């Protein structure tokens, strides 16, 4: 087998752009979160560091890097360090299968705006997201603190319970798409309106989308399901013993997760990089410009979903642990099953 140097360089370039891009967006998601929190509470939010406080994430990151690093005496040192590393790793790994834009066809060949077009894209995402539980669990257990351990168990059980309903809600959607590849799912949602109905999966699977969204809230440990990390009420959470940038990595990984899962939601349900009248646009502009427009469309959708996540966070109070479990097991899973049955019946007898 011959090594294709150009291919490797192209992919490396794409990976670094996506990595830096998602890190940057995650950084500014922290800023946006504070701004959203502020304006919803009639405050102003960070506005001292630079114009409108735009340097605030840099200042926060710098502060975390310079803080004292404490590793508890009786902790399992290797696992303690592995915890945040794993959280960060799984957070950025998901971005590999997201199609960021259509193929750019040039004279020299085709450039795909996707790191890996594997045919089990969704399964890959689910696998990596489940790995994220290890980061939480290892971190909480290795710190040798009962509260951390309890909290990480709480977080892990929450993640596992909601992954079930999340998977079931997607099964119904996958029955309609007939493919696990994210690229194919996006291409099926081409444009906005086709053959008398919307092409986006949101309009085909509204209930599935709703269940997926609720589960995404729980998977991301975001309000109203943010009990793994409430600081004062439940003793800080699994990262109680963490300090300095290791704590920073845990918190930062969540914002990367937030961005990536918003992109995944946009890809699965809101047509990814597709937008209305895209064929007319594609006919009138150059392929590179068209690809840029598509990427910007996807990012806009993702940012809208991030903002929605933030609006919800500052609207709803936190669920109690038993309420959380009841919602997951007794409401969402049966609902997802019903959705699955209905979808199957519709495919079998109505659409054919």
């Amino acid at each position, binding site marked *: 087998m011959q090594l294709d140097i150009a291919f490797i360089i192209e992919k490396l370039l794409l990976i670094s752009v996506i990595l830096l891009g998602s890190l940057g967006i995650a950084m500014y998601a922290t800023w946006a979160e504070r701004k959203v929190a502020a*304006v*919803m509470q*009639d*405050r*102003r939010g960070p506005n001292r560091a630079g114009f409108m406080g735009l340097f605030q994430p840099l200042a926060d990151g710098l502060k975390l890097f310079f803080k004292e690093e404490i590793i508890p005496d009786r902790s399992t040192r290797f696992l303690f360090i592995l915890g945040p590393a794993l959280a960060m790793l799984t957070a950025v790994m998901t971005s590999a299968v997201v199609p960021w834009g259509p193929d750019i066809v040039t004279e020299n060949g085709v450039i795909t705006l996707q790191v890996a077009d594997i045919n089990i894209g969704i399964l890959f995402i689910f696998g990596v997201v489940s790995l994220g539980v290890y980061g939480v669990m290892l971190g909480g257990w290795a710190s040798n603190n009962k509260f951390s351990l309890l909290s990480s168990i709480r977080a892990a059980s929450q993640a596992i319970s909601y992954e079930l309903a999340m998977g079931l809600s997607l099964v119904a959607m996958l029955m309609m798409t007939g493919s696990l590849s994210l690229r194919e799912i996006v291409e099926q949602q081409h444009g906005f309106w086709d053959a008398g109905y919307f092409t986006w999966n949101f309009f085909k699977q509204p209930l599935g989308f709703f269940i997926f969204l609720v589960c995404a809230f729980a998977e991301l440990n975001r309000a109203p399901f943010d009990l793994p990390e409430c600081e004062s009420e439940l003793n800080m959470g699994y990262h109680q013993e963490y300090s300095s940038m290791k704590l920073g990595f845990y918190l930062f990984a969540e914002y990367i997760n937030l961005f990536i899962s918003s992109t995944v939601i946009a890809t699965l349900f809101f047509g990814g990089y597709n937008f209305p009248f895209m064929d007319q646009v594609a006919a009138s502009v150059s392929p590179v410009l068209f690809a840029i427009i598509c990427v910007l469309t996807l990012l806009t959708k993702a940012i809208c979903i991030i903002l929605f996540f933030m609006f*919800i966070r500052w*609207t709803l109070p936190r669920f109690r642990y038993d309420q959380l479990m009841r919602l997951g097991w007794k409401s969402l899973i049966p609902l997802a099953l019903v959705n699955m049955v209905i979808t199957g019946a519709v495919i079998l007898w109505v659409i054919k």
Partner: protein
Amino acid sequence: MKLTNRSAQVNRDPMTFGEKIYLPAIAKGLSITVGHIFKKKATVQYPEEKRPFSPVFRGLHILNRDEQGRERCTACGLCALACPAEAITMEAAERKPGEENLYREEKYAAKYEINMLRCIFCGLCEEACPKDAVYLSETIMPTHYSRSSFIYKKEDLLIAHPHKQESK
């Protein structure tokens, strides 16, 4: 017995289906929080924008001079006597011939100290002063790193000399 007319009976009816599925409540909550985005901000941007003080605000002390720039204080000690927090100490000295341009009366305060950590800014010293020498200005007490810098000496308290200021 009703103390106010504002008490309301709590509704303990079983929840309806609409309430149970929780979604209308979420929409309502979202409409409230999103509505707050467009409301006026409550923040006062402090260093750029200052709220006006009340006309009776009492801040940092000053020691006054008369029109010729002479210190008004005669170290009578009435302010220290009036002070409920015992924040003021002073030492008196007699004016020497030739110092008439510095001190208004025959006696003056050689040392005049106010411990700002003790001071409660009640303004009783200002009221007690028979010579209109001590006043409470509108300046907020600044912060310091050491206790000793909270003890304000006479030099810190005296206002600038009116004629020397003009010649500059």
